[in-house]
């Protein structure tokens, strides 16, 4: 009975219930929603936002915020694709490692400023986003790598899928879920992962118990950058083109999803399961707008409302917990 009570009180449960309710509602309006094709498409739309949300989740648990990951993702994607095109390389493992490393370096760049100079994460990441995007567009180039120039190996990888009952489920969904499990294991089962929670909850206490908090900040932002870089290249392999102007405005969707998943911007709170559910809920809401034939110019308003509502609810929850 007690276990049931704690289960009911968890924010993941609330998000899950909302997801189910919305799905039942949409299914009632339009039974085509329940077709495997549509559901698999929905899952596919979760992949990129989901991996980026894991990145933002790590930073939020550490008590920070990150608006630079879209720029990092674009840089990792564009540079890797250009390098593949120039060398004619036909594998995928090495490019993904390369993109992840580019993201990692960018993330560590954030960490230097945040840890060494104790600067406010929002302002640091605003600046680093502008630096990376400006360099990418100003020095590397602005032209889009189209499908005819995209490395075939990358396209083949992004197309790989599983046949389930006649409908195709993109294999990328499993890449995303695999990453989610890895991040979950890292955050909850390793000392370094736990130190991110401790640091986000109370930096001073974390230091006093003996955590190397400097290292914690580097790990949190480095991991966030690496995930963003990986997501960037994966995105281009799924849509078969690489646009250096891509991902503009993604920070809003991703932050909205993470906040929906119950993470607190004050740090120390947040879970991978909640984030995965939050991403699913956000994608579901945006998708259902299309199904309900609401003009897609309304999407921005809806995402804005979602951010405000979700933060209002978490603020209310935190205040009740503190009282």
């Amino acid at each position: 009975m007690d276990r049931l009570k704690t289960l009911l009180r968890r924010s993941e449960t609330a998000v899950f219930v909302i997801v189910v309710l919305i799905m039942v509602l949409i299914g009632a309006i339009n039974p085509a929603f329940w077709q495997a094709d549509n559901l698999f498409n929905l899952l596919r739309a979760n992949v990129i936002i989901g991996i980026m949300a894991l990145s933002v989740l790590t930073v939020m648990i550490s008590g920070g915020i990150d608006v630079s990951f879209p720029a990092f993702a674009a840089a990792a994607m564009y540079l890797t694709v250009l390098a593949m095109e120039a060398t004619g390389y036909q594998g995928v493992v090495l490019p993904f490692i390369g993109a992840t490393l580019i993201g990692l370096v960018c993330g560590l760049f954030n960490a230097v400023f945040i840890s060494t100079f104790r600067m406010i994460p929002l302002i640091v990441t605003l600046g680093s986003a502008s630096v990376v995007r400006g360099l990418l567009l100003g020095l590397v180039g602005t032209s889009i790598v189209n499908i005819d120039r995209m490395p075939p190996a990358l396209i083949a990888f992004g197309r790989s899928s599983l046949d389930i009952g006649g409908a195709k489920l993109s294999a990328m969904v499993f890449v995303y879920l695999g990453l989610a499990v890895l991040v979950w294991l890292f955050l909850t089962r390793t000392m370094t992962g736990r130190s991110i929670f401790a640091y986000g909850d109370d930096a001073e206490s974390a230091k006093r118990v003996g955590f190397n908090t400097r290292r914690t900040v580097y790990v949190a932002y480095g991991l966030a950058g690496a995930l963003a870089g990986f997501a960037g290249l994966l995105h281009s392999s799924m849509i078969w083109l690489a646009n250096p102007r891509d991902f503009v405005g993604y920070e809003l969707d991703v932050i909205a999803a993470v906040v929906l998943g119950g993470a607190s911007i004050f740090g120390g709170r947040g879970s991978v399961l909640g984030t995965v559910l939050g991403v699913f809920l956000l994608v579901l809401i945006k998708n259902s707008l299309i199904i309900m034939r609401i003009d897609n110019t309304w999407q921005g308003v809806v995402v804005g409302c979602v951010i405000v509502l979700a933060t209002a609810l978490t603020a209310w929850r935190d205040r009740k917990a503190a009282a």
Partner: protein
Amino acid sequence: MRGKDTMDKRLDLSRFISRDNNILQLLVITALIFALMSWLEPNKFLRYYNFESISFIFPELGIVAIAMMLAMLTGGIDLSVIGIANLAGILAGVFFTRIYPGDPSAGMAGEIARVAAGVMLALGVGLIAGTLNGLLIAKGRITPILATLGTGQMFTGLCMVLTGGPAIVGFPAYWGLIGNGKLFGIAVPLLLFLAVAVLIAVMLTKTPFGLNLFLIGTNPRAAVFAGLKTERMVLWSYMLSGTLAALAGIVLSGRTNAAKSDYGNSYLLQAVLICVLGGTNPAGGRGTVLGIAIAVIALMLLASGFQMMRFSNHLIDFIWGGFLLLVMVLNAFRNRE
């Protein structure tokens, strides 16, 4: 009693010196930029035309930066300023083109009344938007970053809904005067900026409201215990910030004779940069209008120089970002000493 008095005075003095140090440092930076640009591009930079065009372009950014500073004083931030500015301009555009189109027989008085109504509408939108931010932050206890990120997205989304994407054009001629006109040989936007700057400077330094904002920013908990009406003060500061953002939107749409949902997107970064460069502490409690005014001029001199040297906009974005990080690092070093 006497001991306390002298200590207070010394505290005042040291604060005054450190404040002036910051202003002095800014003036040196501005002079350096001026000298550098005059040396690199003497023929283009040192022309009256260049300074005149700067006097039309910088005020909108300066007003946005002051709006941002007001939020930063209490340790917050207003990420929705650009959204509010665009929404104000677009709503005025919708008002002029669809709701109350010009009547050729109305004459000059009628036209002025129409523009005045548009101005009131735009400022009213800013006030409402700012009130929404303030209520969410002060009463709803939502952290300013997320609250204004969300509302900013809502406002930008509304801009998209109203325009469907393309810019709104066809503002009345008198509206254009706000952004392009001259009064006594001085750019109207510059006059507006000066008026706002003086007004806000007086308000921050001479009224209880201003003092309260600084106190809340320095130590919010102490401010509550000292009996300050924290909630109301924070609410007011965001209302003011929203109204100023709308004014910037009026000037912007007047200058360009158009209003668009993604106008001035890089203004957000620049506004934060100007605040930080101008000595505003993003953690709250410190900031001056004079600092903002000098910082915005320094930045505009730099920008016009770069444009003459044919730097691409992307590279200028890179420089703004790098400049922001650099200034923050310098501030961090100075605070450590």
